[in-house]
């Protein structure tokens, strides 16, 4: 049975691709129904993933167990890259998460995107995205992973820039793509390097991550390749210093934000690092680098911080903690996908109900008008804040535990891990605070709906300023503007309920499996089916009450503060903002990171570009064109006079040539 599922693993990427192709090819015919093939395709691939979930196998060293070769892709001398899929614990876990969230997001988007002129385009790209993402997760080869990695990047570009007529969206898409390219260079170099040092130039995980290969590799190569892989993951998962694209990426449609920038794509980096853990575990200094970059990330955004958590956990994998660390990271990835997608979709629902107004200051007290959105948002917010017994609590607790264990485990670098531990706790507090702020500002207080007379409304035409681009196309039927303040259609609320249910469910499972038996036993048990997972160091660890209490307290304090400040209109935030106006302004301006980048990187690059242009125009072009002019001059001055159009000249020259050759033949 398991063999059957493994052999049919190719169906997982295939269905969404087929759906996307149908949606793209039949765009004119399908019109309003363009979502059907894509939603069905993703749902089918989710079902297959469920089947795979129970057939995960770690595979044996030197065998092809758990892998399936779909087709030959590249066979050049010295390089053989089949399209080969590996079905193990990590893969199946990611697969089921990705396909499940994607299904719900796609269903949500049916309601959200209704009436948009680019409706079929949206769904075909979503199908392509799920294809790339599942392919990325399934592939058993660094090169294939890279190909899908790029595919994911392209889809992200297409989706962020979905409303490409809007300059902000277009430039955000460009930014996301370019920043990702910076990371991809690292990945590519890592692959080249690996290719040159692994035996048989075989880039499959089976070969690269096997014990013998890892031990045969030189130390410096391991360090640098790990760093390069981590660099790639940094860009894809929006970590410092390459996180700048993620906030701008919110220009895309909200389902896209949920799909790509919360649940799936950004986890690709975490996946890559987790997959390469056997490699990275050999380079302790890299682990420090992983965690050190995260020190600077503390104040960044929600997703960035949560992904930072995952990297922190991965970085904590020293010695006996390695297994625990990977499990913690992947578990957080898993739970985070659900509640973050939930949060994004819920805010999308709010926006939908408010007629595409996204300025939080322009509405409040919506809990009676949007009950379902309100309570699902609450579940998500609580999970994000790490309040027991929701799933977020357990996964965050695992990460904190991993950090703490690492602090004990690593004697030399213990103080670093202790510091990271407290940073993580602080992050938990901050996360809880801003999540609570968003929640309370939106759903509590006196009821207020957006209206053009609002003093907070932009001075110019609000539709032009805050519209989603498709507001320009007035009578498009689904009528945002007319039904302001009503709950979203079931097509949008059901996914919210499903996601909220999952968030609660995982929490319950963890609760039942018991804080005393190890919260993540069932999850860890599944991850044990991962290739080379058993080689990671592991030790006994259990539920740690102090950690749990500290984490919960941090979350509660954050939520409480935000309730005090924002649940009712109060003067305190304004006063605070005035007192710390520098910090406030800095925060509003994303801490001037974009500006710093502009000074540090853009200006020198632009100067260099201008210099290069100058050199190109006057030096290189001059040289090249000068060389090109030589034959022209020669032709014009020397050869052209012979092209005088007189037939007899041509014949005479031919005859002279014949005579000359004849003469040479005879005399020499």
């Amino acid at each position: 049975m398991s063999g059957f599922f493994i052999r049919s693993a190719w169906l997982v990427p295939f269905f969404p691709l087929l759906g996307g192709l149908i949606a793209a090819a039949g765009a004119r015919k399908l019109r309003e129904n363009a979502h059907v093939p894509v939603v069905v395709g993703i749902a089918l691939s989710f079902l297959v993933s469920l089947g795979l979930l129970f057939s995960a196998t770690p595979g044996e060293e030197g065998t092809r167990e758990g892998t399936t070769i779909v087709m030959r892709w590249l066979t050049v001398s010295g390089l053989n890259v089949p399209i080969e899929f590996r079905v193990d614990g990590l893969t199946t876990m990611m697969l089921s998460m990705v396909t499940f969230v994607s299904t719900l997001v796609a269903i949500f988007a049916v309601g959200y995107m209704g009436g948009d002129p680019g409706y079929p385009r949206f769904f075909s790209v979503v199908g392509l995205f799920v294809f790339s993402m599942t392919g990325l997760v399934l592939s058993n080869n660094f090169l294939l992973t890279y190909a899908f990695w790029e595919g994911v990047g392209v889809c992200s570009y297409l989706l962020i820039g979905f409303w490409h007529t809007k300059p902000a969206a277009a430039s955000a898409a460009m930014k996301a793509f370019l920043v990702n390219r910076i990371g991809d260079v690292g990945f590519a170099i890592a692959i080249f390097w690996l290719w040159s040092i692994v035996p048989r130039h075989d880039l499959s995980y089976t070969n690269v991550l096997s014990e013998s290969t890892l031990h045969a590799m030189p130390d410096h190569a391991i360090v640098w390749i790990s760093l390069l892989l981590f660099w790639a993951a940094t860009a894809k998962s929006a970590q410092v210093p390459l996180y700048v694209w993620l906030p701008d990426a919110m220009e895309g449609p909200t389902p896209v934000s949920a799909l790509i920038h919360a649940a799936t794509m950004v986890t690709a980096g975490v996946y890559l690092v987790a997959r390469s853990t056997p490699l990275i575990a050999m380079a302790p200094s890299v682990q420090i680098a992983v965690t050190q970059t995260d020190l600077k990330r503390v104040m960044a955004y929600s997703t960035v911080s949560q992904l930072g958590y995952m990297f922190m956990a991965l970085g904590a994998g020293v010695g006996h903690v390695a297994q625990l660390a990977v499990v913690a990271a992947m578990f957080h990835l898993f739970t985070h996908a659900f509640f973050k997608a939930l949060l994004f979709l819920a805010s999308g629902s709010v926006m939908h109900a408010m007629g595409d107004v996204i300025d939080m200051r322009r509405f409040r007290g919506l809990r009676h008008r949007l009950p379902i959105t309100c309570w699902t948002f609450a579940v998500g917010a609580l999970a994000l804040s790490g309040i027991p017994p929701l799933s977020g609590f357990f996964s965050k607790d695992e990460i904190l535990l991993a950090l703490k264990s690492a602090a004990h485990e690593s004697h030399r670098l213990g103080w670093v891990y202790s510091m990271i531990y407290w940073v993580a706790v602080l992050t938990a507090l901050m996360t809880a605070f801003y999540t609570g702020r968003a929640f309370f500002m939106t759903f509590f207080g006196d009821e207020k709906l957006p209206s053009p007379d609002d003093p907070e409304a932009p001075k110019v035409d609000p539709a032009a300023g805050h519209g989603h681009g498709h507001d320009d196309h007035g009578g498009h039927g689904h009528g945002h503007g007319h039904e302001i303040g009503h709950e979203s259609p079931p097509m949008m609320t059901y996914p919210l309920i499903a996601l909220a249910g999952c968030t609660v469910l995982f929490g319950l499972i963890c609760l039942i499996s018991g804080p005393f038996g190890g919260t993540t036993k069932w999850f860890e048990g599944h991850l044990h089916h991962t290739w080379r997972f058993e080689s990671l160091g592991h030790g006994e660890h259990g539920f740690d009450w102090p950690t749990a209490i500290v984490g919960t307290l941090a979350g509660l304090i954050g939520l409480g503060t935000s309730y005090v400040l924002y649940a009712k209109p109060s003067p305190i935030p304004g006063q605070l903002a005035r007192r710390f106006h520098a910090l406030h302004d800095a925060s509003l301006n994303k801490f001037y990171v974009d500006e710093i980048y502009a000074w540090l990187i853009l200006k020198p690059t632009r100067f260099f570009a201008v210099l290069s242009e100058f050199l190109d125009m006057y030096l290189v072009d001059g040289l090249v064109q000068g060389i090109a002019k030589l034959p022209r001059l020669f032709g014009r001055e020397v050869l052209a006079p012979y092209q005088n159009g007189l037939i007899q000249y041509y014949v005479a020259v031919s005859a002279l040539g014949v005579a000359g050759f004849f003469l040479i033949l005879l005399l020499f």
Partner: protein
Amino acid sequence: MPAEPEILALNALMNYLLVGGALFVLGMLGFLARRNMIVMFLSAEMMLQGTALTLVGFGRYHGNWTGQVFTIVILTVAACEASIALALIVVLYNRRTSLDITLWREIREPELECPVKDEVLEREEAEEIEPIPGPESYPQLTPAGIEPAHPGQAWTERRS
């Protein structure tokens, strides 16, 4: 009719090669030097004649018919060439009312100054016309399309 000659010796073959080569070269000279398209065409035919002569000689020397067969092929090709070339010459003459090949130089580099001396110089290079002594006289022919005067009986009437 001369008697059927024996298979040629090498010396006899040489005669044909020598004359054939001379004809070939003279034809080439005509093609290179003359500007009248009809004369150029005649010169090309003369080159073919030289070739035909050598082929017949070789066929004789080897004692088989191949050379003669090739000559027949050459004859045919020459006939084809005559039909096409004369048709082309008629068309070209109709365009420029001249048989001068120098007037057709369209394949040259377009913006190039013509290195050939202009027409006035060329006319000066041309030989003077040596006047024929005596008054100019041409034979009188009846213009076409006009019924000539009938001097006597028509031949049909005379016959009866």
